[in-house]
């Protein structure tokens, strides 16, 4: 392979083709990433962008800050709850849409739509649904006799946390649906036929055939969604703004608030870096799995 002048020329051509990508990556991803680590060692006043080196001072401050720990807790709570709902509803909806129902492709489009619609649109619609005086949610629940007084969906606890978890589940469960649906279509029918002959009921067919077949895709989906839910900003910021007070404030919202509300860019960077450290374990796990899948598919 080496020594052949053609191979060498090809390698140069390959490098030239990837060069724009590498340059852009260095300028807008690698440099900012390193810069974020560096910024977190300073205290920087945002409007003037002046500041002093304080070493690990920001991190020491965060370790003793109840607000940081509360935000971390909120992030974990939101991620676990909304992710669980996404998986449960996603798998159920995928199984449902896998069956022969009338106008199936229209049904699929309607289910997928929330995932592709802008978060801004989703939030506006839900804020209108949650409206305390004229919102449909309160009206329906009053009519059904579930509540006696209209609820304050976004302005009080624990309602605000429950609301963002529900809207998050609604917005992102279609991702699970698409991934699972694609996998379901590749499970051979013969497996089900054989199980039927052996006298397996619908439930045991689901547990013994469908679930094991879905396992790999579910692991990947859970990891990806966990990473994306953990760093979610738009949906929570626009629904509650982190309120009431800091009851629904997650780490990404704390970064934004510290940088542009409290004007301390150094501390905001420290929060962002800490957040990334927590996420890193998930990211490494996903990279490992993806790498394994690659090698298998190349075999």
């Amino acid at each position, binding site marked *: 392979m080496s020594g052949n002048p053609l191979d060498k020329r090809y390698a140069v051509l390959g490098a030239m083709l*990837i060069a724009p990508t590498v340059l852009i990556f260095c300028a*807008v991803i690698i440099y900012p990433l390193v810069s974020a680590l560096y910024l977190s060692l300073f205290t920087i006043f945002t409007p003037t962008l002046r500041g002093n080196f304080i070493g690990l001072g920001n991190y020491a401050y965060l370790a003793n800050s109840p607000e940081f720990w509360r935000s971390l807790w909120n992030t974990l709570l939101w991620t676990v709850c909304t992710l669980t709902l996404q998986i449960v509803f996603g798998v159920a909806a995928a199984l449902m849409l896998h069956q022969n129902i009338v106008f199936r492709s229209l049904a699929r*489009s309607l*289910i997928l739509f929330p995932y592709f*619609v802008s*978060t801004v649109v989703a939030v*506006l619609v839900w804020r209108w649904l949650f409206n305390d005086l004229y919102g449909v949610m309160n009206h329906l629940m009053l009519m059904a006799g579930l509540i006696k007084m209209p609820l304050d969906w976004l302005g009080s606890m624990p309602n605000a946390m429950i609301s963002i978890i529900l809207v998050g589940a*609604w917005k992102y469960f279609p991702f699970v649906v698409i991934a699972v649906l694609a996998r379901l279509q590749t499970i051979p029918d013969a497996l089900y036929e054989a199980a039927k002959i052996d006298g397996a009921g619908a439930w045991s067919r689901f547990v013994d055939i469908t679930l094991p077949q879905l396992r790999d895709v579910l692991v990947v989906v859970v990891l990806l969604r966990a990473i994306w839910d953990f760093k979610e*900003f*738009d949906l929570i910021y626009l629904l509650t703004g982190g309120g009431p007070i800091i009851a629904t404030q997650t780490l990404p919202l704390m970064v934004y608030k510290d940088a542009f509300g409290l004007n301390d860019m150094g501390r905001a960077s420290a929060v962002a870096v800490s957040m990334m450290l927590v996420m890193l374990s998930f990211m490494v796990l996903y990279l490992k799995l993806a790498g394994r899948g690659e090698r298998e598919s190349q075999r």
Partner: protein
Amino acid sequence: MKTLAGRIAFNLFAWTVVLVTAFPLIWMILTSVKPQFELFRIPPTFWPEQITFEHYTRLIYETPFLKYMRNSLILGFTTTIVVVVVATLGAHSLVRFRYPGRERLAQMVLFTYLLPSVVLILPLYLMMVWLGIANTIFSLVIAYTTFALPYALWLLRSFMQGIPDDLEAAALVDGATRMEAFVDVILPQALPGIISTSLFTFILAWNEYLYALVLVNTDEARPLTTGVMSMLVSAFNIEWSLLMAASVMMSLPLIIIFAFLQKYLTRGFGAGGVKG
């Protein structure tokens, strides 16, 4: 589901679930065509008693909505073109060429695809201020490449891995150079993948909120996402029917893509790293 009755019951159940899921979006459309006073009816009416498009005309003539829309279109198309061109060349290189560091590079692409934008946003903000291009659409195009480029590269790489090596080899035997083989053989084969990637990139750029919130502070460069939200915040009393009309208008490109190009969306999904 052997019996007819069982089949009908299942269909009814399935469609109830679908309609409940889609209800917020149906409600958005219905609200946008109701006259303002009908919104404050208790109990609320489901079908509008009277259909009106006044909110749409008001949106277009009395608010900066069209300006935001123009910005969003420029931003979406520019980002898509830049990202897809760079990513197509890059993905081709990652799939068909051998050079040291190639595998590491592919891994890095996947890693950056998972990075949270709040980590990058503060240095990027400082960078834009320093370059003197804060508050421009151009600064947003640069910022959007941070998430769109890794995504497009990864997607295109999966698509291109599906193109058999023999095709390019045959063209080379026939005397084509590698670049000619790329243009004449690989590109036509990769076209469906390129369309999928372009659609996803456009949707990502169209829907983005955080960078637009931080980097742009004037109506001249503001895209729809932050623009419409500023209409909500600045209003003295919130006009929900106007906001719902804005939401419908904002979803129009998506509705068009869903109606005509949906197969490209589902195909892109299969390739996008959720292979399992």
